[in-house]
């Protein structure tokens, strides 16, 4: 096709398509949208986006977020967790308990993992990865044989 014919074809297709009116939307669309809007409106505030939260929870959330970030920063800079919790929340005795429990859990995991020979550990991870890959492959093969070629 030479450039002149290409231009003619482009012009003709363009003219033809531009005469095409919009397609009529299904009648169900309006009802679906209104139902979805109602459903969203009925959701509790904590299941909506942050922008839709009431002012008090938003402020509280921001305060907690700042406290958490500050706490991690202090932990990273060498302040001990116990001292941090004691300084920040002197009235809350359960904070010390939570910190102790976290330490105990961390020590337990470290001891258990440390007791497993590295060969077993890496071997186990390899077996899990292989099983995952095999399952994925079986799924793909089954789909292509049973569904895609139908």
């Amino acid at each position, binding site marked *: *096709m030479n450039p002149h*014919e*290409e231009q*003619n*074809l*482009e*012009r*003709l*297709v*363009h003219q*033809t*398509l*531009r*005469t*095409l*009116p*919009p*397609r*009529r*939307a*299904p009648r*169900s*669309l*309006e009802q*679906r*949208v*209104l139902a*979805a*809007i109602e459903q*969203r409106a009925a959701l509790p505030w904590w299941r909506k986006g942050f922008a839709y939260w009431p002012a008090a929870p938003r402020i509280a959330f921001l305060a907690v977020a700042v406290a958490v970030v500050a706490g991690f920063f202090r932990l990273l800079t060498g302040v001990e967790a116990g001292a941090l919790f004691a300084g920040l929340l002197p009235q809350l005795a359960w904070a010390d308990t939570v910190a102790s429990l976290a330490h105990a859990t961390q020590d337990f995991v470290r001891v258990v993992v440390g007791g497993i020979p590295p060969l077993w550990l890496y071997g186990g991870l390899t077996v899990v990865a292989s099983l995952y890959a095999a399952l994925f492959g079986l799924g*793909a093969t089954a*789909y*292509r044989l049973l569904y*895609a070629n139908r």
Partner: protein
Amino acid sequence: MNDEPPVPTTDAGVSPVADFTTFMRNYQDMVFSTAARLTGNDAQAEDISQEVFLKAYENYSHLSTSPTAGGWLKTVATNLSLNHLSRYRNRWRFFSEFKRDDAGDDREAPEVEFAAPDTFFSGVDASERRELLERALDQLPEHQRVPLVLYHFEDLPYDEIARRLGVSLAKVKTDILRARAALARILVRSGTGHEQIQP
């Protein structure tokens, strides 16, 4: 890219809308058309249209008085449709076919020689013409239909289409050229055109 405005307009812009339902009624055909022509699937187009209007509802305070609300809706419908096509392609490519859709079978396709007639339609009423055209568009493969729709309906230039679809500029031009030829061939075969295509 219709010359006809999608909604009734006044000299000052879009007619005032009383509420969101009226707003939706004014634009739902345009939004649905955009999604349906890009996806080639009415059910998916309805899902996308719903998503577009839910986003519009979130921004309704601004859109209700905006003279560019139609453009905003069309842009969102186009973006969501392209996202949907891209996501769907990526999800099923592994399971169905390993070759890329945009590789297509164009290399094997013969070049089409086509002498454009003055019109594709003669003695065909408007509703039949519309049906023939919509059916012809649906018959195009996705890698031809999508750039064709973006070019002729959405007024996007070639380079923008290439960027949005993540393919080369040359491929976009080739796909659109072949899409035009394929569309013309379908319309001529449907018995509405004046001339025949010589493959």
